[in-house]
């Protein structure tokens, strides 16, 4: 379907856009300029299938997502209420035919996301004019209106054009299946490393390599030139040094950005390299969003609620707003809803900092009554949550701000599979378990730490990866299939070191067969 007809935002919506944005700014939000597009139901599903972008490179999985979205929205299971792209200007979509109160709610919500995109440190990764930060403070400072440059809609459109050109030349089959290979590796990137790129880092080894030890026969001084002739020593030194260098590993230190390593060193055709580069760029773009789902939705929900109830919703709209808001924040069926968890955490932090419930005195206080009435009237809450939205990701947020009180108030629990009853059952509401499980779950949705260990493994030009095992094993079946894909890029056998059921092991694929053996 072509989205040829471009609609101007109707003037009544434009009016509300201006008002809501002004109000958001008054409340302290620091947002990129915003563009709202009104889309029909079908177009909305299409754009959503493309991950929010109007143009993506051709690939079947958008079709798969589209089918899923279309079905679930036709069945009324889910409706996409808001979609906003981390772009400067931010681009967001409104569903045609929604009631005015819905549109206002979406606009208010989008302002929250927009502020988060612009100010959360993880999103600096998506600055196209990123410069090496000289000091940590740089990460927090916002810049002029049209900066930083985040023209990602254009960038994604360019990616699409480049890949379509390759399709014309090499056929959809070849290109699509190579994209499949690249997507299989897309999580092998190094976002923290990239955030700190260019920063002065201590060299891995500043020192000169150890001098080689030469054979010297014993002799009295004047006999030295004859017993240990200089030429012989020189020749031996050269030989030993060459040997030392040869045994040096490549890369010298493990490389977390596996995709960059492959781009630099794998024997790829030019079009393949181009595709891999595109997939890597897009993976870095989406990384911050995956790391801040709870925070981002929580922050946006916090602000849509402030803006709607304090300003934008009129008297006769408030019931509809409340209805909608309740369904957005619903935790029906015992589900953990990131919107709800996030907004409650921000409110919890705000209240604690307003009442001064932090610091040593608070931590040391064990008197229940005293804690309950603890109020230093500091009024630091608002400032604190703005700081939190800039400096944290989901994992660090939960780690630092999830409190036992919060777990009780919000009725959080852990659940597990019961073999006896063949169903998921509530385990416990104990604070530490809840926190650990939540953190594990969040890390789990992240990726395992994997780095290139050796590109000349066993001196056969094989690629060796290493999984830094932190307690959770890899999914072996998926790992094997991923190895097949790396092998296709590296064009030599590939292997990965990991721990399988407490035993350090090495999984290897030689292009035909998989082997698993314990590590020596």
């Amino acid at each position, binding site marked *: 379907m072509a989205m040829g007809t471009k609609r*101007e935002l109707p003037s009544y919506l434009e009016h509300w856009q201006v008002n809501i944005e002004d109000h958001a700014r008054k409340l302290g939000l620091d947002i990129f300029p915003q563009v709202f597009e009104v889309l029909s139901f079908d177009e909305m599903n299409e754009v959503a299938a493309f991950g929010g972008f109007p143009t993506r490179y051709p690939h079947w999985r*958008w079709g798969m997502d589209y089918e899923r979205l279309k079905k679930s929205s036709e069945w009324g299971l889910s409706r996409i209420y808001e979609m906003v792209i981390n772009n400067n200007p931010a*681009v967001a979509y409104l569903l045609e035919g929604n009631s005015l109160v819905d549109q206002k709610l979406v606009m208010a919500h989008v302002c929250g996301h927009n502020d988060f995109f612009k100010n959360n440190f993880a999103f600096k990764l998506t600055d196209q004019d990123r410069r090496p930060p000289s000091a940590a403070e740089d990460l927090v400072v916002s810049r002029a209106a049209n900066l930083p440059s985040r023209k990602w809609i254009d960038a994604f459109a360019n990616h699409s054009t480049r890949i379509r050109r390759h399709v014309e030349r090499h056929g959809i089959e070849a290109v699509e299946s190579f994209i499949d290979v690249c997507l299989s590796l897309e999580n092998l990137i190094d976002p923290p490393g990239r955030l700190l790129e260019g920063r002065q880092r201590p060299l891995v080894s500043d020192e000169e390599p150890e001098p080689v030890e030469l054979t010297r026969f014993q002799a009295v001084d004047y006999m030295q030139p004859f017993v240990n002739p200089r030429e012989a020593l020189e020749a031996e030194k050269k030989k030993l040094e060459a040997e030392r260098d040869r045994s040096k590993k490549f890369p010298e230190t493990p490389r977390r950005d596996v995709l960059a390593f492959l781009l630099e060193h794998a024997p790829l055709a030019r079009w393949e390299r181009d595709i891999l580069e595109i997939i890597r760029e897009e993976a870095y773009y989406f990384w911050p969003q995956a790391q801040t789902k709870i925070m981002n939705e929580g922050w946006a929900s916090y602000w849509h609620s402030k803006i709607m109830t304090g300003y934008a919703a009129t*008297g006769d709209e408030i019931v509809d707003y409340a209805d909608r808001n309740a369904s957005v924040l619903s935790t029906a069926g015992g589900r953990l809803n990131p919107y709800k968890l996030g907004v409650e955490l921000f409110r919890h932090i705000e209240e604690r900092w307003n009442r001064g419930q932090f610091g040593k005195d608070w931590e040391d206080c064990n008197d229940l009554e005293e804690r309950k009435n603890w109020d230093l009237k500091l009024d630091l809450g608002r400032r604190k949550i703005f700081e939190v939205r800039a400096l944290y990701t989901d994992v660090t947020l939960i780690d630092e701000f999830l409190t036992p009180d919060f777990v009780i108030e919000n009725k959080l629990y852990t659940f597990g599979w019961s073999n006896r009853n063949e169903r998921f059952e*509530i385990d416990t509401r104990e604070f530490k378990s809840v926190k650990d499980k939540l953190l594990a779950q969040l890390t789990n949705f992240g990726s395992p730490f994997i780095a290139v260990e050796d590109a000349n493994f066993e001196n056969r030009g094989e690629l060796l990866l290493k999984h830094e095992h932190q307690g959770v094993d890899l999914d072996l*079946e998926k790992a094997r299939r991923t190895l097949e894909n790396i092998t296709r890029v590296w064009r030599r056998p590939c292997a990965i070191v990991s721990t399988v059921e407490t035993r350090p092991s090495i999984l290897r694929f030689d292009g035909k067969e998989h082997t698993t053996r314990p590590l020596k």
Partner: protein
Amino acid sequence: MCSGHSRRLRYALGVALNIDQDHARFRDIVRGKVRENLRKYISNGELIARQGKDTVSIPVPQIDTPRFRFGDKSAGGVGQGDGESGDPVGGQEGEGEGEGGRGKAGQGEGQHALEVDVSLDELAQILGETLQLPRIENRGRRQIFAAKDKYTGISRTGPESLKHFKRTFREALKRQIAAGLYKPDRPIIVPTREDRRYKSWQVDTLPVANAVIIYMMDVSGSMGDEQKEIVRIESFWLDTWLRSQYKGIESVYITHDAAAREVDRDTFFRTRESGGTMISSAYKLCAQIMKDRYPPDEWNVYPFHFSDGDNWSVDDTTLCVQLLKERVLPSSNMFCYGQVESPYGSGQFIKDLREHLGADERVVTSEIRDKDAIVDSIKAFMGKGR
């Protein structure tokens, strides 16, 4: 200032979206995978349990993108809500893949087949292509349509009997709040005429069935669970194929041992009797039902009979052949007999049928030794395009 500003920034989204192409590619891949694995799907029978109203959810292997991921041994997560330790967690049916901070990791984890919905029509098409089944010619019978009311929306007017109470009261609540008449401590809501909402309907025309499948199955003691499973699987595929050929289709189920009964679908596959076998009883009932309910000038009739081929007596077999010749065959598109192998049966019946009716092209017989033979049996039955 802002309005001019935002107009200038308006993005050119006028680029054509290409989801249709991507969607077609995806369906192609799915179709290819289903075709590749069709024999497996047929013989292991797993699709039957996955049947929805018009679709089948098919596990398509190896279509997902593998990544280095954590294996999840400690299935579970964090949830929110009421409940004691040991209580079940709500909403366990039909959950999608856990994403973001949402719970529900676990169960689906580790299995790597992606489930894709394929419509029964599409499945029939793939079946047809793979087994090279000819399309069936509707034998000039007329297509009848019937009108049916369907409740589709809400309107402001309508008969009182169709009043939508929840909507009506919500409208009233909205109005009262807007007018400042709503008191939270005394929440009395009185709908006025303008608040009333009614269910409204549309008239749909639906094609009336003009084909019927009459399934007959031997449920005597010698038919075991495995034999019945074969019949179940085979009937699913026959249903699927015939459904794709006719606009509407009806099914009749007859079980028999020494006597025959018309039953519903559920009973059909569950019944187990221990009596002897008189096949003629089933054919008699079948002929009767055809005569009473499915006159041949309006209906395409497909009688299928499954048995282990161990009939009571030679006399009864003679009677069967006579019934088929005189009463069943003249009013049917074709008659299919599938014989499943059982350790107790002599398997004589199929030989008798072939001897007496083998020359009649309306009669198809097929021996189904095991589940792997189902595919060929379907091909034998439907390969004639009748």
